[in-house]
């Protein structure tokens, strides 16, 4: 047997990708440090506000009876919605074998994990006695008292802990080969870190096969988790007897809204990464255009659901629900409502529908308005419903947020940015092995990002 004929051209593209994508792991710039300090300051202020609120009492917020839930629950739903950017979209793209996904999935999965870490804090932040949050967990204790499994908040506990476990695993598995690469290229403490994280990855063919199979199978399961999580979050409202909350539409409505805001967040973060880390070769206008098309679908779907929600309320004309309806259309919350309609539909729809406008700038503008609009949408579900309860003599209360609520909300935005910045300095933002994946393999059409 002769020695194999060797093609002279090496996998230059993958090597270049490895170089570019591992570069952020080696250097931190001045801007990065300044930005981190700024974000840490905002987070610190938010933590102070939380401690202040915990020690003085929730009265420092604008919440009063009957609006028991306000900004914090809005933030909770919003962040859990953002978390649907990643795992769900990435899993769908994986299962449908969309080849343009390689550059997108890692960034998306990271959003999921961080948004869940942040969103999962809000149920604790909004507690009257946050230091007793562990009472919501079923842990053995000396009085043998267990939590109430009939409460939707308890379902949240299980759903979110499942989701965060699943999506962390789902982020971690495709990272392993890249961590091994980073281990082989790094020195010092980083090498130690990557060595422990890469779990003895060698790159044997058995490992590749098992890993690819596991990712594929988990993609199927994680879709079931993701859909159920936001449905369960919507059930926090839909299970209540509050007139405008008690609605069967909330499950799909929340899931659609979650994917909607999730894609928008993904587009914004991708644009930032592209600019900051010079990933123009990997995150191309085509990616933004493709995600823009997905976003367009979700815009239409969102419009469909909102129409459904409003038209049934209006036609049914039940007095309990109409008070909420009118408070949104022309009452206390009307400015927010119409801003939401503009942000979620009137601005993004033309931008995303016209091919000429569906550029990187265009999709980013649409995404920013959608993020604002979706936050308002969550707010307009939570607050007007709570404020307009059945006994009409309580309905005069108009909710305004106080500075603690606003500060904590801003702090979580900063936390998201900081977590993402930290992630970008420790892990490659684009799956390097998947970028090259398939190029060498037998099927020629499943290659590359372009």
């Amino acid at each position, binding site marked *: 047997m002769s020695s194999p004929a060797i093609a002279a051209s090496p996998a230059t593209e993958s090597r270049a990708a490895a170089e570019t994508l591992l570069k952020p792991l080696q250097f931190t710039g001045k801007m990065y440090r300044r930005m981190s300090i700024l974000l840490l300051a905002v987070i610190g202020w938010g933590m102070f506000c939380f401690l202040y609120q915990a020690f003085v*009492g929730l009265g420092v917020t604008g919440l009063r009876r009957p609006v028991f839930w306000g900004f914090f629950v809005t933030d909770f739903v919003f962040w859990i919605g953002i978390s649907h950017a990643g795992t769900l979209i990435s899993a769908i793209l994986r299962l449908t074998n969309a080849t343009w996904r390689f550059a997108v999935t890692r960034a998306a999965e990271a959003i999921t994990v961080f948004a869940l870490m942040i969103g999962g804090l809000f149920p604790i932040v909004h507690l*009257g006695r946050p230091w007793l949050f562990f009472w919501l967990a079923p842990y053995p204790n000396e009085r043998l008292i267990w939590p109430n499994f009939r409460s939707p908040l*308890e379902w949240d506990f299980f759903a979110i802990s499942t989701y965060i476990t699943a999506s962390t695993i789902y982020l971690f598995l495709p990272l392993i080969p890249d961590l091994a690469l980073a281990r082989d290229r790094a020195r010092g403490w980083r090498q130690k870190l990557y060595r422990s994280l890469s779990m003895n990855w060698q790159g044997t063919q058995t490992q590749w096969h098992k890993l690819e199979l596991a990712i594929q199978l988990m993609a199927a399961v994680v879709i079931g988790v993701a859909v159920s999580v936001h449905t369960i979050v919507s059930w926090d409202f839909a299970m209540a007897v509050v007139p405008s909350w008690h609605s069967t539409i909330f499950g799909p409505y929340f899931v659609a809204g979650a994917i909607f805001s999730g894609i928008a967040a993904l587009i914004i973060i991708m644009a930032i990464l592209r600019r900051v880390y010079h990933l123009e070769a990997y995150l191309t206008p085509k990616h933004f255009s493709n995600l823009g098309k997905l976003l367009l679908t979700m815009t239409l779907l969102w419009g469909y659901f909102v129409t459904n929600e409003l038209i049934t309320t209006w036609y049914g004309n039940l007095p309990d629900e109409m008070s909420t309806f009118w408070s949104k259309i022309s009452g206390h919350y009307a400015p927010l409502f119409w801003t939401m309609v503009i942000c979620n539909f009137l601005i993004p729809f033309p931008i995303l529908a016209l091919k000429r406008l569906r550029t990187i700038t265009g999709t980013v503008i649409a995404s920013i308005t959608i993020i604002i609009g979706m936050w308002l949408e969550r707010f307009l579900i939570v607050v007007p419903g709570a404020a307009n309860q059945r006994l009409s003599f309580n309905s005069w209360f108009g909710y305004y947020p106080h500075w603690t609520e606003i500060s904590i909300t801003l702090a979580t935005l900063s936390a998201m940015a900081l977590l993402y910045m930290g992630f970008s300095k420790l892990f490659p933002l684009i799956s390097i092995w998947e970028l090259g994946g398939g190029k060498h393999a037998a099927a020629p059409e499943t290659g590359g990002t372009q």
Partner: protein
Amino acid sequence: MSQPKVKSAHTPRWGMIIDLNACTGCSACMVACRAENNIAITGPKEAAYNGTIQWMRIERTWKGRGRDIRVENRPVNCQQCYDAPCEPVCPVLATYTNDEGVSVQVYNRCVGTRYCGLNCPYQGRFFNWFDYAWAPTMEVQLNPDVTRRTRGIMEKCSFCIQRITAAERQAELEKRPVRETDIQPACAQSCPAQALHFGDLNNPDGVLGTVWNAPGLEVLLPEVGTRPKVRYARRVRPLRAPLAESTGNSIASAPEVKA
């Protein structure tokens, strides 16, 4: 785990009838409730921002217009529902219906998710937004049988459960079943018009048992299906000038007059 059982022939099931014909809207029940249950006085600033705590409150609705306008005073406390919507939503089992049908709030267990407050169609639940202070002279008036609630927990009417328990202990000492006439919640005790009647629904010959299913009695928001253990005796008016519209049974259907 389970409640201290009272050795009596039957388990009582406490309920209340509020006679809207007798109620004058004098608010004595509100004051008595506040004194009995150590309810915090939150001050004028909080009151302007819906931050008051009133386990018993008088809700005033106007019916009719112009010269025909009529006021209806309706004392509203926790309606002590059989199917209380506030209970299953609590993730830590801080609220449940005890053996005697009283929907109770376990202050020690409450972590303050405030879900119960949202899910109460009567808004009969109140949250301690702050650690409320008592003025120095007021502090000596605190009822020693009732805890002071700290910040961050829910509270609500419990039919003066401290009085119920005291009567049951007394009955136990005297080795006799508890009598409903031994117990009066503070609101019922203080009502000068005797509009509030407290009693045992499981006693068919008692104060409430004899009239409980009378046609003149209504529940608040029957459409929610909460099956309250508080019923209202409907206001009966002499035929005078006709009202512009039919008088609704529930407050929700009564038209509101904007002041």
